């Protein structure tokens, strides 16, 4: 059984080292050839991954940082820590929303003050822990949702026996994680916890356009946008999660606003998308040192 679980395991702490090296190297311009690797956004990606991919894209686009979006079915296996999305910069990788924002924040002109940072950190943590756990539960643990949406999507790029086995393995792992780390026990709990999260976010946002500043956006805005959009567009039959967001109209309007802002920051020449749909003929990822 162990060898089957191997792709999900940690093999090195490359990512953490990368971030440290970058921080110590000081203030640098945004590199040219940056590739953002994500799973297939239309057919493969599951709820929480979709949220994080959307958030990362929104963050980079809002700040005008150019990148090439690379959709490939094996993105999860490329990431050393199995975190998504994966940012490839020349020779090294940065994985996960938090690491990417830490990396990018050093290259943005407008820095947050330490007070502003400590004001948004509780909300970032809330989304990364409670909202994320609720999404994991809704998508992976609930039987109806798992069978009708998550399992077919997650297994879609693989041939027959694998497309049944891999979702089940992933589900076992996520169940084990949730039983230890969250008090969620049913879909009612999920709805309740998501509802109080949404309420807190809505109260915090109030009538203002963005969370911290009236003009500028930061990673909290990106993260909230990613998770709310994923919830609003989710097709999970059980739980009725979309309705939870629709209860708070200012959050829905906030999403539309960020959508517009994101498109303004987008330069069509800089943002190209490559999509690889077949698992069989994957183009290799070329590192700079190989060229």
């Amino acid at each position, binding site marked *: 059984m162990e060898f089957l679980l191997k792709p999900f395991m*940690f093999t090195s*702490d490359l990512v953490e080292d990368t971030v440290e090296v970058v921080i110590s190297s000081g203030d640098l311009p945004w590199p040219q050839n940056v590739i953002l690797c994500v799973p297939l956004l239309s057919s493969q990606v599951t709820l929480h991954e979709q949220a994080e991919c959307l958030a990362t894209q929104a963050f980079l686009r809002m700040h005008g940082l150019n990148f090439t979006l690379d959709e490939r079915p094996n993105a999860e296996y490329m990431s050393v820590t199995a975190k998504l999305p994966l940012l490839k910069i020349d020779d090294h990788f940065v994985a996960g929303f938090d690491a990417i924002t830490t990396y990018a924040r050093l290259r943005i002109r407008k820095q947050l003050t330490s007070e502003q940072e*400590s004001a948004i950190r509780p909300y970032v*943590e809330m989304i990364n*822990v409670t909202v*994320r756990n609720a999404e994991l539960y809704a998508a992976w643990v609930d039987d109806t949702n798992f069978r009708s949406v998550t399992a077919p999507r997650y297994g879609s790029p693989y041939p027959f026996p694998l497309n049944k086995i891999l979702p089940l393995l992933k589900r076992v792992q996520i169940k084990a994680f949730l039983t230890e780390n969250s008090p969620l026990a049913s879909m009612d709990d999920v709805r309740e916890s998501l509802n109080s999260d949404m*309420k807190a976010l809505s109260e915090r946002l109030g009538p203002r356009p963005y969370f911290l500043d009236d003009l500028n956006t930061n990673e909290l805005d990106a993260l909230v946008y990613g998770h709310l959009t994923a919830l609003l567009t989710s097709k999970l039959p059980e739980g009725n999660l979309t309705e939870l967001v629709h209860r708070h109209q200012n959050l829905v309007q906030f999403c539309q606003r960020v959508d517009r802002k994101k498109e303004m920051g987008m330069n069509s020449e800089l943002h190209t998308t490559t999509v690889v749909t077949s698992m069989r003929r994957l183009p290799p990822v070329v590192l700079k040192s190989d060229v």
Partner: protein
Amino acid sequence: MQNPRHELEVWRGDWQLLSIDPECLRAAAYVRLSGAPVSIVQNAEPWSIVSGAYPVLRGENKSQISGADAIVKRLRSDGFRCPHEANQMTTYEEADAYALEGYIKSSLSPLLDYLWWADEEFFQKVAQPWYTKELSLYGQFVWTNRQKKRMLNRFMMTPDAQISEAKVKLFRKQTVQKARRCLEDLSVKLSDKTFLFGLQPSALDACAFAYLAPLFYIPWKSKEIRKELFMDNLDKFKNLKLYVDRFRKRFMEGSAISSVRLVQRPVRWYHRALEQIQKQQDILLFATFAIAVNVYLLRRTVRRLRFSWPAFENHARQKVQDSYAEMAKNLGMKAEMQPGA
């Protein structure tokens, strides 16, 4: 909930704390702040509860509510609110309080768990003796080991992957970083106010106190973590330390402590024997060792004697052969039939 027959059962305390467990402390602090008529019971038998963990609120008809979150919610719905919440709390502050509670919990509770269970020096020198003092035999030998195993397993899990043993170090690094950031944020948030939202305490203060107090009061052993969190020279988090002291003196001591009942451990017949054994542990250990060595030497000598004494062996074989011959004779068979001849 008008009658004081409601009981809040929490872990026993030590090191000037009402309870050693942060979640129990949180529930107890909320009871104190809101002035709900609930008496607090200190106990140490978590395996006897259905949910398997303190705190538990016991009401009439044997109803039980477990978990600090559920208890706080229940008390709130029954109209017992903290002074600040009852008077003037804006929706903006409510949202902040909700987010901060989750933030404190998710960044400090892994650190406390790590310090208590995974720091070997602390566990052997402080935690285990404490359990020996407070728990019954089952707790000391079975529950503690199970809990420790469970906790260590938990440290190795992340939402995306399972880490190997070697990655506990990485976990430690991340946990300490996260906790330090949280302490910095709280320090900024508190600055020089009496409570987090000004002059009157709220539910958030109960939560903050519950997670900060064990960090400051329990004598943690790990030197690196002490250094990284500035536990020894508290210039950086001085306001937090003062805040915790103030909160404890005002709400968790003196007249407040009088309604706390401690469930005594029943005296069993074997306790005296155990005490004697503990007193004379060294002698007993030495005696056991000496006896074991003697027995081993004796057996070895006997075995060698038996193998290096052919006369004895021949004698035994002869005896067996004789007995076979006699048996054959009695059965009326020939003596050549005997085996091994």
